[in-house]
């Protein structure tokens, strides 16, 4: 694993074992593209690949938050509606003149952060299982958005800044969305590997009581973890709203299970404490590509679901297996 590089004597074998998921998922990505190219050569065209990376970056941003939570041994089921909240709040802010336009993105992200923090309080301080806290938070966020839309008829057009962030091109043909993901990804790698916060995330995921007795502020960190995950989900929503030009109620539905699948396919242990961001990158690209290729190949919906499931199981069987008890 990356964070082990400080010790040069680390056995190669361990590295290989830890990196196996990443190697295999990248191999699968290439395999998928090759299979796709049998159907149409355009699957290998730069246009298509850039387009996939752009779409993947939305999932990438969201999966970053999910990975943080999973590393802590928790799970965040509130992604769909925190994402929507971020998108809708950012769009709503746009209606308030230039200041609103300027603050749209931070405001949307902040809303996600705040709601994530509430989940965090439930999980870290009230010790309610994350699965149920975030489920409830998802319902609450949905309720808030329904009441808000119905009651206030907010603006839901994305600001020009949001559009630029998601669809503009700062550098040549590289969409900004990809740059945003690279930025967030780099930050995530840095935080996870090089900061005390990152180290504590792994420690909490491995054994929270030991981390607590070692004097880590486990509860506060966990609460913030949920805050960050909420913020990233909301940021993903902001980007999606920018991409689509507007926020819509149902925009988050398609992101919960794929974000978990991406993280896990990337080799992060669902039990927490083990995982590498590069793996998540691979997982995100893989999931996006798989969905896209199946969609373009016009496989019937039922067939897509089945293939999607089979691919995940097969990949996990290749490298996601736990050690036998003996």
């Amino acid at each position: 694993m990356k964070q082990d590089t400080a010790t040069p004597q680390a056995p190669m074998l361990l590295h290989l074992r830890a990196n196996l998921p990443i190697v295999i998922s990248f191999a699968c990505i290439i395999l998928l593209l090759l299979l796709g190219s049998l159907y149409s050569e355009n699957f290998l065209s730069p246009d298509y690949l850039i387009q996939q990376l752009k779409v993947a970056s939305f999932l990438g941003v969201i999966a970053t938050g999910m990975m943080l939570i999973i590393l802590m041994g928790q799970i965040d089921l509130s992604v769909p509606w925190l994402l929507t909240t971020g998108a809708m709040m950012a769009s709503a802010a746009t209606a308030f003149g230039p200041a609103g336009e300027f603050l749209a993105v931070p405001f949307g992200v902040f809303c996600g952060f705040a709601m994530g923090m509430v989940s965090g309080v439930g999980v870290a301080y009230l010790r309610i299982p994350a699965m149920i806290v975030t489920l409830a938070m998802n319902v609450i966020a949905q309720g808030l958005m329904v009441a808000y839309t119905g009651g206030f008829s907010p603006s839901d057009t994305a600001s020009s800044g949001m559009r630029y962030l998601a669809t503009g091109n700062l550098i040549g043909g590289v969409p900004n969305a990809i740059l945003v993901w690279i930025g967030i990804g780099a930050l995530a790698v840095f935080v996870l590997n090089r900061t005390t916060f990152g180290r504590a995330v792994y420690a909490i995921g491995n054994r929270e009581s030991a981390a607590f007795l070692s004097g880590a502020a486990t509860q506060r960190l966990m609460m913030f973890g949920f805050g960050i995950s909420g913020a990233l989900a909301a940021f993903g929503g902001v980007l999606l709203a920018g991409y689509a030009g507007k926020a819509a109620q149902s925009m988050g539905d398609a992101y919960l299970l794929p974000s978990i699948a991406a993280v896990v396919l990337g080799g992060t242990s669902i039990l927490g404490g083990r995982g590498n961001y590069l793996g998540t990158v691979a997982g995100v690209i893989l999931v996006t590509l798989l969905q896209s290729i199946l969609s373009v190949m016009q496989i019937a919906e039922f067939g897509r679901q089945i293939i999607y499931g089979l691919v995940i199981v097969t990949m996990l069987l290749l490298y996601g297996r736990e050690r036998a008890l003996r």
Partner: protein
Amino acid sequence: MKEWRFFAAEQRATLLALVLFLVMFIIYVSNHPAGFTPNVVQTASNKGVILAFVAMAQTLVVLTAGIDLSVGMIFILCNCVGSYVLGGTMASALGGAGLVLLTGLGCGMVNGLIVIFGRLQPIVTTIATGAIFFGLALWLRPFPGTVPDFNGDLADLFTGKLFGVVPASLVFLLAVVLVVWVPLSRSVIGRAIYAVGSSDMAAYMSGMPVKLARFTAFAVGGLLAGFGGLFLTFFTYSGEASLANGDNYTLFSIAAVVLGGVSLYGGRGSAIGAIFGALAFRTIGDLLFVFDFDPLWQPLFQGLVLALAVTFGAARLFRIRNRLEMFS
């Protein structure tokens, strides 16, 4: 300690779930325009029993410290299968019901086999198999429908009232509890299910049938989800491959299990508790009916009640004097 104290300690979570449900149900019924009538109870119990089955299914897997994110999809698949095979004469429809249950059992067995021999985490395995099960459901029922000769009499038998008072669905649920849950929980495998969830290493070291226990939990879980799907078919006379519904029932079942006092960390709780959890969860939805909320605020109200109900479980926190106990 006296014997009964041990009994109370063992059953505390289940009893709490019962209390939670009763409190909510009393609030509901006492505000219901029709009051406490057999019809109102029948309606509530039909709706509750469907989720109760799925929640029981979830409980078995959760007891092994796993989670089954495909229960909802098994449930949907069984519903779709049911919409094909519950037609014709009483006998053939009953045979069809058996087929529905076998479908559920089969799905559960697939989950179990992958988890055990693939050594994969249940949560990710079932995300994947859930997609597969849903794909199959969609293949069977590209759009909602039913067999032309659907046996509504059989369906009404299970969703109607016995002697005009007792909801048949409740009686049937009780029968399933007695025939499936009670023997299982008192068998060697059942105890191994608890043991695996509590500490799988220790269970293995103790020579308990660890793999069989996991397998059984998934398989019987699938069977129970099949009962849920069967009941949904009885209730709706039809099948529908609804993705949203599958996901919802999965999530609802988790909520029900938590409300029912089953520990998501495994090893603690009972399917009986989960049943009360499911009924309580359903009552949250029913409360909308008796309180006059602006329709646009209803979803928020539901979310808040759910949050409140689960915060209930946090009450034990205030008794904790040693912070290390928080982590277990």
